[in-house]
């Protein structure tokens, strides 16, 4: 047994509830195994190279006991939802699928199931369906989620299906009381199918909760997935997420990522391009103000020949906000003709804000194109002077340039209503928000 008080707490919490979770003996065994592996290894800390910028004390200060939850009504959700006309909707409340709040619609080759229901009805199927976290040092929060797994959603898109309407996956934290919830999301997109997925993280209450999401996305040959992700949890919420995405031959994946809220966000985006000519494009923006923190870790593995990836991230720090972008690209010997690019540009608006970047390239073949670049700086004085020399005051000039810094990332959003929505959230976090609003 670990001497670490956090691990002891996790073990005690597990002992209290694990056998009452969904799935019966088979799942009790699997959860128990995950727990014992985790106890042997401990949680990541500052000494782990890919976790060095994260405020582990903020996580350690939270309760790992199950968080209290509360019923949520459609009326409560209405004001926090994204303006997505005609989307299918799946709602997870404190990690658990809520069919009553969802409006998934049937047919067109898309199947949406409550994970707890599958675990209860067909534990063996569920065992096959969920990835077992590996021994990788970066996979330990997924292991923690595995030790408690009983809630989440499974989304399957049949081969060659084109479900049309996008799928809105809303993660709602009730913030009822301190504690932790774990959630699993499994998405399988069949060969040649298309899926447009919009994921949105919000909280209703303000308790200091920890939400731990382990998710996997499997994109089969020739399939196309567009994935928009907007994090805007409340000021006390901490969110951990581990995404493992695999792409088969000729598949396409596009992710747009916005970290706009929450006390702490740690995102692990693990992307494996397994098949020939698979291509992925990630872009996004993280904003940290006040004492908030966003820590983004991407790991992109090129296995297939002529696979392509591009990553373009921006960070804006103000107040005492802390941000990190850690991007690792591995090009394996099999990935001949691969093309990988990665950029991260960061803007610091106040002296106490901090953003760290850490690009890592590991290339094991000669036949490859790789580019990366990371910059962190303040607004350009020459640009400010140019605008002022045209009659704009200094505050307006700075406000314009700050919005301009992320304008292309926002402009790439697929719908006008979403662009407006995100821009308003971005502006709302800037020191000169009132000036910017008056300009629009």
């Amino acid at each position, binding site marked *: 047994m670990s001497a670490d008080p956090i691990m002891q707490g996790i073990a005690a919490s597990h002992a209290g509830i694990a056998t009452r979770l969904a799935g019966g003996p088979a799942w009790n065994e699997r959860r128990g195994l995950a727990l014992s592996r985790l106890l042997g290894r401990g949680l990541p800390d500052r000494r782990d190279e890919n976790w060095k910028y994260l405020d582990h004390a903020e996580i350690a200060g939270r309760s790992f006991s199950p968080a209290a939850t509360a019923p949520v009504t459609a009326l409560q959700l209405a004001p926090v939802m994204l303006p997505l006309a005609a989307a299918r909707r799946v709602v997870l409340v404190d990690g658990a699928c809520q069919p009553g709040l969802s409006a998934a619609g049937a047919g067109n080759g898309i199947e949406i199931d409550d994970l707890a229901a599958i675990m209860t009805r067909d534990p063996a199927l569920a065992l096959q369906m969920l990835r077992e976290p590996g021994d990788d040092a970066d996979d330990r929060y997924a292991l923690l989620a595995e030790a408690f797994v009983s809630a989440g959603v499974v989304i399957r898109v049949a081969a060659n299906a084109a479900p049309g309407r996008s799928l809105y996956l809303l993660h709602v934290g009730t913030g009822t009381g301190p504690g932790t919830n774990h959630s699993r999301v499994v998405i399988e997109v069949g060969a040649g199918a298309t899926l447009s997925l919009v994921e949105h993280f919000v909280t209703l209450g303000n308790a200091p909760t920890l939400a731990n999401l382990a998710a996997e996305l499997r994109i089969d040959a020739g399939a196309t997935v567009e994935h928009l992700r907007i994090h805007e949890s409340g000021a006390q919420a901490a969110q951990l997420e581990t995404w493992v995405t695999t792409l088969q031959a000729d598949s396409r994946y596009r992710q747009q990522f916005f970290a706009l809220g929450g006390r702490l966000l740690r995102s692990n985006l693990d992307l494996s391009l397994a098949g020939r000519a698979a291509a992925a494009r990630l872009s996004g923006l993280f904003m940290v103000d006040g004492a908030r923190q966003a820590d983004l870790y991407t790991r992109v593995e090129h296995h297939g020949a002529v696979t392509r990836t591009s990553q373009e991230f921006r960070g804006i720090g103000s107040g005492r906000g802390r941000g990190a972008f850690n991007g690792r690209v591995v090009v394996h010997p099999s990935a001949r003709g691969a093309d990988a690019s990665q950029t991260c540009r960061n803007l610091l608006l106040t002296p106490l804000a901090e953003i760290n970047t850490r690009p890592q390239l590991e290339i094991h073949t000669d036949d490859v194109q790789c580019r990366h670049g990371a910059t962190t700086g303040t607004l350009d004085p020459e640009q400010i002077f140019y*605008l002022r020399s045209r*009659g*704009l005051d200094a505050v307006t000039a700075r406000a314009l340039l700050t919005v301009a810094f992320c304008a292309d990332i926002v402009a790439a959003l697929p719908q006008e209503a979403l662009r407006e929505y995100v821009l308003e959230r971005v502006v709302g976090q800037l020191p000169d928000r009132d000036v910017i609003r008056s300009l629009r």
Partner: protein
Amino acid sequence: MTKNGQTILSVRDLRVRAGERTILEGVSLEVRAGEVHAIMGPNGSGKSTLTGALAGRPGLEVLSGTATYLGRDLLALPPEERARAGLFLAFQYPVEIPGVNNVYLLKASLNALRRHRGEPELDAFEFLTLVRARLARMQMDEGLLNRGVNEGFSGGEKKRNEILQMSLLEPTLALLDETDSGLDIDALKVVAEGVNALRSPERAIVIVTHYQRLLDYVVPDHVHVLARGRIVRSGGGELARELERRGYDWLRDGTAAA
């Protein structure tokens, strides 16, 4: 409104430092309404420092001397107030600002100046009509309006964009910093036309240049030679042609006799 012959800018013994180096060692200049001045000089003589100091470029420290603009202490004003009072600097290196729309800046800028003058802001239709007319004069593609400010513009397009802004803002005092550099002959003529269109008895234009060629198209009333931080010689348009013929070397000794 200024009247022909009224003093617009009066610079007295201006000394300016950039970093550790004193660049301007005492410049005096008098510019009246209706006049076009050319300030010529070799590289490093302080031409851009002079226009920068007058427009309020950060990083330049005025050590002594005065600059009076329409009776006001120009050097006490922040850059935006100088602009609103009718001073315009066409940049030698117009800065690219991706994400700020060119037409947005034109409109924000024009309206900032109009508000300052107590004039109503232009509505969208009036504004576009005005911009289109000016674009045509500068032979610029309308597509450039919806690009980021100077983003991906060629050198010539950037310079035309500066003159486009100038022709829209109709400054009382225009400072053109090496606007001719990097322009081919056709672009030079277009830029010159834009500058000449602004010439009027109420305005003044100060053209800073290394070469005489822009002055073939925008004929100056006064030519000054700046060398090592001082105006070492002043004269009429013929001085520019003499400089073109003889270079700057004969003036290196400051007050060398002609």
